[in-house]
């Protein structure tokens, strides 16, 4: 499917489109700076960057509200930003500062904001899948009208929790959308090796729920397919599995030498950069000009630069902070 060929491309209004573009740029800029500052030694631990996959998080989360929940993965920055988590607080969290969204206790892999419906990045592959079923059970039991969207990678599709979660959601008819971000690799291992299914979406058939493959580099295609799945869940018609074929521009983690894929392969996907494609669609359709898009880019750059400056200036937590927040009461 060529970029922008979906019906959504012509139906989305100007504000929505520019908003999606800005969010995708926020994610890209966030990740580029995270990589750069990780290399500079400003980020403890390790980071897994989402650059290249922006169309998935934004195509889906732009159709959710704070009343809806998402679960995420170790590659979760993009999901957080798309779901509205505070960017300055995220940057501070990466640095382990007291002003981080988790007060420096979670780091890159555990950024969360339950108030925003963001139930956490997750360091366990497939760990968030049952949690999303639980969030959907809450929505159904309390009649909130909300849905749960569960992001996971191609690697997680081989975990037991994937199969347990899809089965549970199917038999309970839960309002949940399972979104497999198939970026071609589970760590260094190609999907063609680690997965017996040519399309992970085929596994939906085992649970008799809809399974759809979508071009994860095309934000319009993602938007449209996700819209159907989300609407279905909201109607009470049950779960769906959406497989977005996507690509990560960086390695599994920063420091990964990425010896398992070729420069040609990376270049091929960079030619299909989802942000470039959206930008071109916006300009081609006369929705906004290059100047207006450049102004958005400049605004995003300034926002991220300010966030890093603030995080660098912020204090680390006091050591005794390590002892708090284990229990509500103990």
């Amino acid at each position, binding site marked *: 499917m060529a970029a922008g060929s979906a019906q959504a491309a012509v139906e989305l209004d100007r504000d929505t489109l520019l908003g999606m573009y800005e969010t995708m740029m926020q994610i890209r800029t966030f990740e580029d700076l995270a990589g750069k500052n990780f290399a500079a030694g400003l980020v403890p631990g390790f980071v897994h960057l989402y650059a290249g996959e922006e169309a998935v998080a934004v195509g889906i989360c732009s159709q959710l509200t704070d009343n809806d929940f998402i679960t995420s993965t170790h590659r979760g920055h993009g999901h957080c930003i798309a779901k509205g988590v505070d960017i300055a607080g995220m940057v501070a969290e990466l640095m382990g500062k007291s002003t981080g969204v988790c007060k420096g206790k979670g780091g890159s892999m555990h950024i969360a904001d339950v108030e925003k419906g963001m139930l956490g990045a997750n360091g366990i592959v497939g760990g968030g899948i049952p949690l999303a079923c639980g969030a959907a059970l809450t929505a159904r039991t309390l009649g909130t009208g909300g849905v749960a969207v569960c992001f996971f990678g191609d690697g997680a599709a081989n975990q037991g*929790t994937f199969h347990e979660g899809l089965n549970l959601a199917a038999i309970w008819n839960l309002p949940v959308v399972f979104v497999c971000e198939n970026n071609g690799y589970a760590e260094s291992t190609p999907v063609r090796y680690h997965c017996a299914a040519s399309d992970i979406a085929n596994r939906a058939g085992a649970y008799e729920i809809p399974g759809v493959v979508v071009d994860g580099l095309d934000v319009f295609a993602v938007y449209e397919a996700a819209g159907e799945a989300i609407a279905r869940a909201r109607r009470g018609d049950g779960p769906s599995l959406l497989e977005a074929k996507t690509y990560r521009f960086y390695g599994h983690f920063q420091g990964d030498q990425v010896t398992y894929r070729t420069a040609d392969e990376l270049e091929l996907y960079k030619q299909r950069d989802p942000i470039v494609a959206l930008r071109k669609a916006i300009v081609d359709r006369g929705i906004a000009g290059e100047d207006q898009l450049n102004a958005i880019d400049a605004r995003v750059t300034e926002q991220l630069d300010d966030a890093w400056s603030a995080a660098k200036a912020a204090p680390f937590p006091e050591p005794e902070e390590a002892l708090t927040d284990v229990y509500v009461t103990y």
Partner: protein
Amino acid sequence: MVTETATRTMTYQQAINEALQIAMREDPTVVLLGEDIAGGAMVDHLVNDDAWGGPMGVTKGLVQEFGRDRVLDTPITEAGFIGAAVGAAATGLRPVAELMFVDFFGCCMDQIFDQGAKLRYMFGGKAKCPVTIRTQIGAGVSAAGQHSGCHYSVFAHMPGIKCIVPSTPADAKGLLLSAIRDDDLVMFFENKVLYGTKGDVPEGDEGIPLGVADIKRVGDDVTIVAISRMVQQALAAADTLAAEGIEAEVIDPRTLSPLDEETILSSVAKTHRLLVVDEDNPRCSAATDIAAMVADKGFDTLDAPIKRVTAPHTPVPFSPPLEQFYVPSPDRIVDAVREIV
């Protein structure tokens, strides 16, 4: 006017059932999830009736009152439904999940300790996880190696989890009510051998606070800290010892995490001797933890080495004579006390 809470005689199992009923009546966000907790889901003649009410009948009758939307039979999929309970707890429900036997924790431990127990901390205190996981423990019915363990020590080791080990019907009711009302992840360990035991249980909806031990027998000569069913074994041993002129004080910690250190230390300060009785395996266990705590904080009050009577470091055997050998007996407790008094 003095008011006293009326009590009735009921079994440990009935007391747990009553606590669940009270909690579900008072809070519509309390839902139950588990394998066969009603049973017979989608069977035409069991629409609002249970086939089993749990494998031991502990949840019997609840689906009739609360319906299948709040008493949710699950597939045999521990990671799936325990994880769903955790996710539901983080988003506004107050679920009570049943892990049929604690030995099955290997199927769902990631969801308990990597997700539920760590979520609040990793999120900087901006979330809570008010889920209770009820589970069966204990040897004594020849259920063999995969249906008989105690394993509460594994959970007490992990921050973010509270561990409750009731030994009487009254404690089971009061502590389960507190567990469900608690805003943290609570493991509630029901000893299957105790399900049929009877005791006086208060009417009403009052909970028993977590982290408060109960002195089940007062004595001056030795402190016996006993966990779960071992409280009964210790009380039987105390009767034998009393005939010899040795008065044992039997302390039931009731919760292993949090642990009421003060009650244990105060008792040891009086008796100067400590024996810990624990049906769990002995390495890195509740027994070693309590012994270490007293050695650390109460060493000056001790007149004898701390003793432990525990299960051996083996899986639970099947054959009745082997299993009887495995579970700490009153005779072993009496012998251990004689060594230090």
